[in-house]
């Protein structure tokens, strides 16, 4: 059984069909990619997986649990989906800018820790222990991403590429089984991109999770992905390994246009 399964998913905004009858699977421990030209509906797909949008038709299943389908009572709230094990990063970085780098990761532990407002009064020692444990775990994540030296810097002030890494760090803190990366290489230079490929692979192995990425950089996608789904105008036009997808005529047409002979 697939870890994440989208079956026959359609999303309409009024008269506009953003995604139509889409099937998409991500297996455990797999690095998968969702690609397509601008406006193909990739971000809409992410928003349906994370619960930001309700699906109009079809069903999204994660780890055997229905998280989004046309019955609205089945649609889970985004924070519940995070608890189930899906975390994401954003195309336009959305860190908590005025918090420190460390606190951004600490915030990621929210769903896997408990201390509430009353623990301050009634269980201070328990709260302190949880806080200390989380700080150690957060530092481990920062060390893994080689960000430990800037742990106390303000998140809004660190370089762009580093902010992207930090977003991944914050997502890792929620202990995801599936990590959604929305254009992780955007704005990176070629050496940063090479490092990113390594990082994504090592994250997958170290944290034993699956990755689904949306990315425009084809070199990176073809290099890293074990399974690629191509969408255009909200429909799936191809699916398979890198070489299969590259040979597909519909894909070539979608990206380069039809030849006129």
């Amino acid at each position: 059984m697939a870890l994440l399964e989208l079956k026959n998913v359609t999303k309409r905004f009024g008269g506009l069909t953003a995604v139509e009858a889409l099937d998409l699977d991500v297996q455990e421990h797999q690095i998968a990619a969702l690609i397509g030209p601008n406006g193909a509906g990739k971000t809409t797909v992410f928003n349906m997986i994370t619960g930001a949008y309700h699906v109009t038709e079809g069903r999204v299943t994660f780890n055997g649990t229905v998280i989004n389908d046309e019955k609205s009572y089945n649609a889970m709230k985004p924070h519940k989906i995070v608890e189930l094990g899906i975390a994401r990063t954003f195309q336009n970085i959305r860190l908590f800018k005025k918090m420190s780098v460390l606190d951004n990761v600490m915030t990621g532990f929210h769903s896997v820790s408990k201390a509430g407002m009353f623990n301050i009064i009634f269980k201070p020692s328990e709260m302190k222990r949880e806080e200390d444990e989380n700080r150690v775990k957060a530092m481990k994540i920062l060390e893994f991403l080689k960000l430990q030296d800037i742990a106390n810097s303000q998140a809004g002030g660190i370089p762009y590429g580093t902010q992207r890494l930090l977003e991944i760090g914050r997502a890792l803190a929620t202990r995801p089984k599936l990590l959604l990366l929305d254009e992780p290489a955007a704005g990176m230079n070629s050496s940063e991109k090479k490092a990113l490929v390594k990082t994504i692979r090592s994250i997958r192995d170290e944290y034993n999770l699956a990755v689904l990425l949306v990315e425009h950089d084809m070199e990176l996608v073809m290099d890293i992905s074990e399974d690629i789904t191509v969408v255009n105008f909200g429909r799936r036009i191809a699916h398979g390994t890198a070489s299969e997808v590259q040979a597909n005529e519909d894909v070539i047409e979608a990206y380069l246009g039809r030849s006129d002979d």
Partner: protein
Amino acid sequence: MNKKFWLVIVLAAACAIPLAVPNDYIQQIVNMIGIYIILGTGINILTGYTGQLSLGQAAFFGIGAYVTAILNTWTGAQFFVCLIASILITGAASLVLAIPALKVKGPYLALLTQGFGEIIRIVMINWTPVTNGTAGILKIESPRIFGFTFDTLTRYFYLTLFFVVLGLLYQKILIESRTGRAFIAIREDSEAAELTGINVTTYKIRSFVLSSVYCAVAGTLYAMMIRYVSPDTFIANTSSVILWTAIVGGFGTLIGPIIGGVVMQTLPELLRFCGNWRLVVYGIILLIVILHFPGGLYPYIQKLLAFFKRKGSR
């Protein structure tokens, strides 16, 4: 170690304040500073840290004060009973308001809370059998705790100081905890907060109710100090003074409410020499502060302290 040392010094200095106060008139202003620090801390958590603007804090302050006044004058209930009832009833009222109110954001939330403030004021005026209307409630007793009566303003100062310290301490621990990070995350980017696993709706409600609990404590302290409550105290102007207390000191800073409380309570008194122009000058000064120190006074005081430290170490 060093930090603890300074904390002890500051606390000792605070305890010594009544020694420097020449008369009851000034002592009452000092006590009001304490009450406004508590109110300012409450709105600092809600607006400064969680990013939800409220213009109706006077309503919760008023509910706390009236619950205390009514319980004490009708049943003779003592301080702690009044305080707990005040917290529970104010908290319940804020919960009832928060659930619909926090579905809206920014200016709409501000308007909604302001409207709530007006409703509460009108209830105070018109629910005469309970609130005694515009005449207000007289003859509230001074608090008696374990046989000790806080019947002078100097004694009352220490009772207020206790709650000020408690309120500031709770704020500090809270903001540096899991809940505090959730609050700040909501202020910074509520959508990203939700997608980081934070139940944004319930945390906004928590912040709202918590800030009203600060108002409730301040309300009880106020009612038992002045020993009289009337609707005139809990007007829209009070809500804005509470908001300004947090703004002037520095929104989203731990000691901002202290600075704000001192400035907002002493400034009108210092300006008495202006006669009829007092409130005009007061308004102009506040405008200058907000234009020149948009982050509040705290960051500048910090810089000033750092400057003196450097000078001192030379």
